[in-house]
């Protein structure tokens, strides 16, 4: 049933006109919120994501504290109006799982050992959802953490590769996600190439997996450049304001 829908032409043209390795349009802005310690607004194709970082601050209740390092608590939340059929507000099983895998991915790059007993809260709000929100959220979280001045080994970045109509492609769109053959979200630390997040649903041969995996890593590096530009732009704006 899945393969009935034509998602890519024999010339490699996808439903939205992209080629197999093209990434949807990405726009990143750092420091968009007043109260948060750090924040980021990101648009990625039809996705709109807002991230606020609070911390490091003392973890409460106390029994959640780790005496050796900070804990990282990411909370991925979809707004009720972010999807076609209204979603009930509040966490569901899907968002709990995504919060967990994002928390674990971020923990690897944050220098948590500098802040024993503290917590770093990363609040990811999906305002508009159109395939790839967990990668969009993690990518925005990386920028918001920098904006908050949280010490990190690297800025984490994520993108999904996948397979549609038997062909490996980068950055699945909505129909590709729904009717494709496989989805492979990957997050990396771009400086070291370490894999921070990896999930796979669908059906890939080992060769296809390797191909998709390499494509995702390549995509991560491309998105990483956009992240860095957003961070630099923010600092330049601040510098300009200070000079005025």
């Amino acid at each position, binding site marked *: 049933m899945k393969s009935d829908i034509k998602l890519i032409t024999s010339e490699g043209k996808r439903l939205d006109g992209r080629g197999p390795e093209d990434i949807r349009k990405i726009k990143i802005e750092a420091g968009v*919120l007043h109260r948060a310690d750090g924040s980021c607004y990101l648009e990625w194709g039809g996705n709109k994501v807002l991230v606020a970082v609070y911390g490091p601050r003392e973890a409460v209740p106390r029994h959640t504290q780790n005496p050796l390092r900070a804990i990282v608590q990411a909370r991925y939340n979809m707004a009720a109006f972010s999807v076609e059929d209204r979603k009930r507000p509040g966490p569901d099983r899907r968002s709990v799982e995504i919060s967990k895998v994002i928390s674990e991915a971020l923990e690897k790059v944050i220098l948590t050992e500098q802040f024993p007993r503290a917590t770093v809260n990363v*609040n990811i709000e999906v305002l508009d959802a159109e395939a790839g929100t967990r990668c969009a959220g993690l990518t925005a979280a990386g920028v918001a953490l920098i904006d908050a001045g949280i010490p990190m080994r690297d800025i984490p970045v994520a993108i999904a590769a996948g397979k549609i109509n038997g062909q490996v492609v980068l950055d699945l769109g909505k129909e590709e996600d729904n009717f494709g053959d496989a989805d492979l979200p990957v997050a990396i630390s771009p400086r070291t190439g370490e894999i921070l997040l990896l999930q796979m649903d669908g059906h890939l041969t080992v060769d296809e997996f390797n191909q998709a995996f390499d494509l995702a890593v390549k995509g991560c590096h491309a998105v990483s450049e956009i992240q860095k530009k957003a961070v630099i732009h923010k600092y330049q704006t601040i510098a300009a304001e200070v000079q005025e």
Partner: protein
Amino acid sequence: MTIVPIIKRDYITNLAAQGKRIDGRNFDHYRKIEIETKVVNKAEGSARVKIGNTQVLVGIKMGLGEPFPDTPNMGVLSTAAELVPLASPDFESGPPREDAIELARVVDRGVRESEVVDVQKLVVTPGELVWLVFIDIHVLDYDGNLFDAASLGALAALSTTIVPAKRFEDQLPEGHQKEDFPLPMSEPPISCTAVKINDFVLFDPCFDEEVIADARLTVATDHNGDIRAMQKGLSGSFSKEEIQKVIKGALDNGKEIRKKLKEVTSS
């Protein structure tokens, strides 16, 4: 429950005694208001409202369902507010607390009692099938005066809402309107809020003012200059004169804000 920040309170009240506020405004002035509509694609209507640094996003989703048994000839409005932990270090995830519930209920009454949405035009089959309107308030950045920002956001989002009849055509009966159409709306009331600090009445409180305020009063007024809703909050009291002062300020500010809303939503 935090200790009242006494130093901050002294600073603000000393300024007030000289007729000043921490951000330089007059007592009855609002911060800069920005309204942006159609900010979310998946929603049938949406608006982002900024009042100073306070930022609220409201999305409208619509669906089809049964009317309430006691109002078979009316569509259904439903309002929920999420004080997501994004917006303030003090907001927590979890079930909505009393603050979020009060906010949602005050916005809800403002929309419902003022009959700004013509719910009688949202009936498909009386007693059986009506349009449901879900108003979801997402507080993004909290620097005071959520009531006004959320009310204004709800009105702006509703004003630009398109009823998605085409998407639901399979569920609509034969012969029923199956083209999308704008949500039927009438003139909206505008909600304005002031707080009392000592004997001073300050409109559109920012976070620092709100935190030390004694009492809060929200008044919604319509284009005829009538009152459509009121809500007093916090543990301080008002005198009758102070209430009159808030009503007057609500009428004056309401006029300005209504103009701004119209500009945005009619464009």
